[in-house]
């Protein structure tokens, strides 16, 4: 019993170490992070202005509602991008710096290592997503009188479990292909969002894409968050989005860990667990 408690304590300290390392990196690269955030704001604006553009072209739409729908899509895209970037690029970054050998020979359980990266990516992603939403909403003077932000945060938190699970699967790609692995992670992010109704209802997609939307956590995250912010839906009212997210999360995390485990074995078998660059 005492041995198990000591092991658990050691793992928790290790998990804190993963978070600590990423905090140091953010601190050291803070100006780069600010530059990328400016780019994200600019990118989001190019999408959100589409609503005003449609109105200017004579389209009959509720501009504020459409703007909010597009903004939520862009924010979720950016949030998912941060989670995938931190999980995938940290492995790629460690390869490039050469620290990967020291991290992977440390006595830290791989699920704990990945959980640490996941926790940091969610915390950092939430801060960036809230800032992005707040800045763009302020620029467009969105009033959002019905918004239930608590409910939106609950949906996002539960969806994050699935996002981290999928991120674990993409995180192993730089181990298998040092040159192209990171880009494959971006492809996974793009595919996930395109079938999930990021800027449009899922109904407009062809049937095979709608089938993929059913198993994509982003579909339920976007639907639930839009219902909470646009219509003030409470947690109970978005339960039909929450329970699929719980099921997908329960599958995605163990699957992500298993995919990573197999990728790590492949890298160890073929001598790819080493520095590059």
């Amino acid at each position, binding site marked *: 019993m005492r041995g198990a408690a000591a092991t658990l*304590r*050691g793992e928790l*300290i*290790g998990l*804190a*170490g*993963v978070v*600590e*390392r990423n905090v*140091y*990196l953010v601190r*050291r*690269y803070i100006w780069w992070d600010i530059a990328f955030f400016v780019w994200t704001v600019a990118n989001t604006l190019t999408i959100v202005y589409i609503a005003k553009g449609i109105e200017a072209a004579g389209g009959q739409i509720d501009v504020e509602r459409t703007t909010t729908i597009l903004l939520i899509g862009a924010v979720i895209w950016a949030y998912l991008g941060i989670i995938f970037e931190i999980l995938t690029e940290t492995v790629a970054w460690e390869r490039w*710096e*050469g*620290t990967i*050998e*020291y*991290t*992977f*020979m*440390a*006595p*830290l*359980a791989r699920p704990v290592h990945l959980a640490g990266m996941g926790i940091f990516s969610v915390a950092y992603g939430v801060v960036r997503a809230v800032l992005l939403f707040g800045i763009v909403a302020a620029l467009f003077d969105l009033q959002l009188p019905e918004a239930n932000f608590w409910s939106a945060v609950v949906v996002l938190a539960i969806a994050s479990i699935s996002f981290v699970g999928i991120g674990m699967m993409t995180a192993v790609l730089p181990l298998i292909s040092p040159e192209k692995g990171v880009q494959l992670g971006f492809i996974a992010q793009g595919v996930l969002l395109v079938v999930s109704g990021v800027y449009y209802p899922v109904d407009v997609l062809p049937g095979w894409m709608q089938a993929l939307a059913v198993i994509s956590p982003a579909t339920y995250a976007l639907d639930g968050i839009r219902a909470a912010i646009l219509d003030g839906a409470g947690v109970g009212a978005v339960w039909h989005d929450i329970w699929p997210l719980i099921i997908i999360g329960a599958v995605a995390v163990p699957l992500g860990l298993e995919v990573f485990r197999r990728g790590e*074995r492949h890298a*160890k*078998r*073929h*001598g790819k*667990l*080493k*520095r590059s660059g």
Partner: protein
Amino acid sequence: MTAVEVSDLRKEFVRRDGPWRRRRVPALCGISFTIERGECVAVLGANGSGKSTLVRLLATLLLHDGGSAHVFGHDVFGDPRAVRRLVNRVSVEASFFKKMSSTENLSYSARFYGMTRGETSRRIPEILERVGFPVERRGEAMEALSRGMQQKVALARALLTAPVLLLLDEPTTGLDPRSKLEVQEFIREVRQIHDATILLCTHDLDEAEALADRIGILHRGELIALGTADELKRRYETETLEGAFFAATGRALVDDEEEED
């Protein structure tokens, strides 16, 4: 007590010759040896002889293709986590997050070995002082430090976790003569004070003779000799270790073999 027991250890890598053709290149061809607790064994070999493959196998960073390896009785491939608690490593590249300071790099990596913030805030200044790292530069980014300074921090990182087996993979390659001597002196100190067992892979003959109890010669993945420096000289009827290496392998130590993974 036996610290390291390697028996018929084999490792091959797959090489691609064009998009369709593949060939298997042996990196270690069934090597066997033991290292006793507290002993320092140097492995000499040209680039590509299999030294780094041996270190990376013992560090649990590679999977083997045959044979076995045990560290203090723990199976390296069957129970890698138990081995990881006992082992640390210093390699030819210092390998740090370059924008982070020495203290930040040491702090997070020590956390992976279960060291709390309280422990690292006490131990890191102590250990950096012992390796001769200037106090006033602890907050500087690693990229601002010289190679010699970075290698001292690498030694500090390895020692911080109190390993009982230290794997040194060309730890002084590329260092200026003064830094090289300082690092070698520190390795002696580690052995004496911490009772650490050391496997030193190098192509520096003087370093091997100065630091190791026994010296092995690794050539094209085969351990063709292992003994004290005097035993090797007697066996190959030569006055110098360089002569023994040449007699054993038919080539000088600086000659490169095919690059290993």
